[in-house]
């Protein structure tokens, strides 16, 4: 693009000189200089060679420029060259991407200007590598950004104040949210002006410490929000230096809720401790042994009384199987089977089991002493699942003693009643039999009623004596070989008059064996009670079946009737002392409610069983089993008295004073 006129010698010299000057000037330049004609390189300085990673300046001369321009920048470069050629003006400073010899791209800041060189119109392109500086500024920017984010997103309220003015220059979002000041409200003010820390004393203290030590950490302060609300913060203050200037960095964390929940937790803890202390005091002050047991039957807790009864410390018992520590025996001294133990029943069936003080098991102490125990095992349930049990028990020696004293009193009192009762009875007899002159009419009727009542009273006193003997365990068992059918027939004969009076049918079903080793007196009481109940409570024209005979290892007595039956709600109470069903109170107001109690106590002490089936209005069947192995002889100081059914037997007819 140079001019076609030939240069003069002076011009040539000038040109040569200028080329040398030019080259010298650019050779040492700290930026890359390339002269090219728009296609090929004419000159490149040392820095340009270094930047593109070449070896010598010479190798570049005559090389096309295009390979050194990154494809991304080729269009820009082409446009620039065209622009310069058309306008002859210097192109503005641009950012372009060049490529080194090894193919590595690098960013450059580049400017280009059309010049005359060696008599030609060419372009002088000056460039410098900005990859490094861009990278540094990028890193700086990123770092600044990171710190800005860190500052902004920091969940602790943060305020930066400059010193010495203490004016806030920056606050973060947490600060705005926590204290309620907008950024622009806070910036330019001191925290004193904002009134954040209202307490002058702590302010002074903090200022002193920060001045002396350069920081104060983790102090709890009550700070005021814009709204005036005071909240508790954990505060850190540090003096920091940025570019030689000092600043105050304040961070605060709102711990009001945390403090409150700590307080609540502390209160709950204190309360729990108080409750636990109260419970422990409660458990230790009650007069019964209390043991809590896990689902595996092992002891978790014992109170003082439990420790005393068992004779071991809480430590010795914890984790031990309860039943090993409190082995129970029945009154014969035999171990109670595991599945019969109240605790096992409570754990397996999830039911409360209470063993009352009068039919207690006994705690067999390791030293051989046997202590009567009343015990209740209650399952502990969590959402229907049994997770353990509480066993409450006590030594009932004293109760047994008191109970025995009561029974002995009843025995003694009953006994004392017999003498005056006999006197009344005998005098009535003397009057009624005419020993004092003729008695007739209403006087006679009344005296007969009095006489019958006296007889009933005698029976009642005898029943009470039997009860007390059973309860004292002082009754004797004298087994003999007896023919039970004979005994049964005798009993039925005693009842014959009542049976025929009510037109009852009695069916006898006697099966072998009929011989039994048993106490005739006791067997008679059992038969007498069951049969006389059937007779009493079966309406006219009813039916009674007495069946006797062997049943496996037992002798079975079965008494069925078509009587009043036992109402469902009364059934659980049938064997309870002095209990009488509602329907029979009306049918027989004279009964006392001791018969079945006596029979059951007796049968059980003889190793037998008694039970019944009944439907109200249909009838009742009582079942009694006595082991065929026979009753064991039992030495007792007293014998039970078979009730005299004299009023109804043969003698009754002779006693009938109407004769």
């Amino acid at each position, binding site marked *: 693009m140079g001019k076609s006129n030939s240069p003069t010698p002076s011009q040539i010299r000038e040109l040569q000189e200028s080329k040398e000057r030019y080259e010298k000037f650019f050779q040492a330049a700290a930026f890359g200089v390339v002269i090219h004609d728009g296609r090929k390189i004419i000159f490149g300085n040392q820095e340009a060679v270094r930047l593109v990673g070449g070896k010598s300046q010479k190798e570049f001369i005559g090389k096309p420029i295009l390979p050194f321009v990154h494809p991304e920048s080729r269009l820009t470069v082409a446009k620039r060259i065209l622009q310069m050629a058309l306008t002859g003006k210097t192109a503005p400073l641009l950012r372009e991407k060049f490529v080194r010899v090894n193919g590595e791209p690098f960013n450059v800041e580049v400017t280009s200007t059309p010049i005359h060189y060696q008599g030609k119109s060419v372009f002088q392109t000056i460039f410098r590598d900005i990859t490094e500086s861009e990278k540094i500024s990028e890193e700086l920017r990123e770092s600044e950004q990171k710190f800005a984010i860190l500052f902004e997103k920091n969940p602790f309220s943060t305020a930066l104040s400059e010193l010495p003015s203490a004016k806030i220059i920056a606050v973060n979002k947490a600060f705005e949210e926590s204290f309620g000041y907008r950024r622009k409200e806070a910036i330019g003010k001191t925290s004193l002006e904002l009134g954040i820390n209202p307490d002058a004393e702590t302010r002074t203290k903090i200022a002193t410490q920060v001045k002396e030590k350069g920081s104060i950490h983790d102090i709890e302060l009550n700070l005021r929000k814009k709204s005036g609300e005071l909240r508790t913060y954990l505060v850190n203050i540090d003096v920091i230096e940025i570019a030689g200037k000092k600043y105050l960095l304040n961070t605060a964390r709102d711990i009001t809720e945390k403090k409150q929940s700590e307080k609540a937790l502390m209160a709950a803890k204190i309360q729990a401790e108080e409750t636990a202390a109260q419970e422990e005091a409660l458990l230790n002050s009650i007069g019964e042994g209390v043991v809590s047991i896990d689902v595996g039957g092992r002891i978790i807790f014992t109170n003082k009384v439990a420790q005393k009864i068992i004779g071991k410390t809480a430590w010795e018992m914890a984790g031990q199987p309860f039943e090993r520590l409190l082995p129970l025996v029945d009154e014969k001294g035999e171990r109670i089977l595991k599945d019969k133990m109240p605790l096992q029943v409570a754990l397996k069936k999830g039911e409360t089991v209470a063993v009352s003080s009068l039919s207690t098991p006994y705690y067999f102490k390791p030293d051989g002493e046997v202590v009567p125990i009343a015990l209740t095992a209650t399952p502990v349930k969590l959402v229907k699942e049994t997770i353990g049990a509480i066993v409450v028990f006590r030594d009932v020696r004293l109760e047994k003693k008191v109970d025995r004293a009561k029974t002995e009193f009843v025995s003694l009192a009953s006994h004392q009643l017999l*003498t005056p009762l006999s*006197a009344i009875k005998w005098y009535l007899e*003397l009057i009624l039999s005419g020993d004092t002159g003729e008695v007739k009419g209403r006087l006679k009727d009344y005296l007969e009623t009095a006489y019958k009542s006296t007889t009933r009273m005698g029976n009642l006193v005898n029943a009470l004596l039997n009860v007390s003997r059973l309860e004292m365990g002082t009754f004797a068992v004298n087994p003999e070989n007896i023919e039970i059918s004979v005994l049964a027939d005798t009993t039925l004969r005693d009842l014959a008059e009542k049976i025929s009076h009510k037109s009852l049918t009695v069916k006898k079903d006697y099966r072998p064996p009929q011989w039994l080793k048993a106490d005739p007196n006791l067997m008679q009481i059992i038969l007498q009670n069951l049969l006389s109940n059937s007779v009493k409570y079966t309406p006219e024209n009813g039916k009674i079946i007495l069946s006797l005979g062997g049943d496996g290892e037992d002798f079975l007595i079965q008494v069925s009737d078509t009587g009043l039956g036992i109402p469902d709600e009364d059934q659980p109470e049938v064997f309870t002392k002095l209990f009488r069903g509602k329907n029979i109170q009306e049918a027989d107001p004279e009964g006392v409610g001791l018969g079945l109690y006596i029979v059951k106590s007796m049968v059980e002490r003889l190793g037998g069983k008694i039970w019944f089936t009944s439907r109200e209005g249909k009838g009742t069947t009582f079942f009694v089993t006595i082991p065929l192995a026979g009753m064991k002889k039992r030495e007792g100081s007293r014998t039970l008295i078979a009730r005299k059914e004299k009023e109804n037997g043969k003698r009754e007819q002779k006693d009938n004073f109407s004769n």
Partner: protein
Amino acid sequence: MVKESKKTILVIEDELPLLEAIQRKLENVGFKTLTAQNTENAMSQLQEGAVIDLVWLDHYIFGKEPGLLFIAELKNEPKWSKIPVFVVSNASGPEKKQAYLSLGADKYYTKVDYKLEDICRDIEEFLNK
């Protein structure tokens, strides 16, 4: 009943009302009676030569059980060992009954369960055998 030669019953009973009732009944049915409210008195009557056909003996006398001692003493003395003894007691139960029968008593009654008439008839039957 043999009216010509009345039999004599010695009644030992500490309770006066009962004693009187027994005495009355026995006399009404034709017996002669001797009474004693304690066994010492009964024993001295025997020692003084009273002729007794039968002894009606209570078991408890003043809360004690001297009946057993009395019958033992009686049966131990050849002069009296043949005298039949009917025990009429408040002490119910076969142990006492057994004890008296083994000591030689002939019958054992519990007061409240028997009529005077029954016992008197048994005495008549027993003495007339």
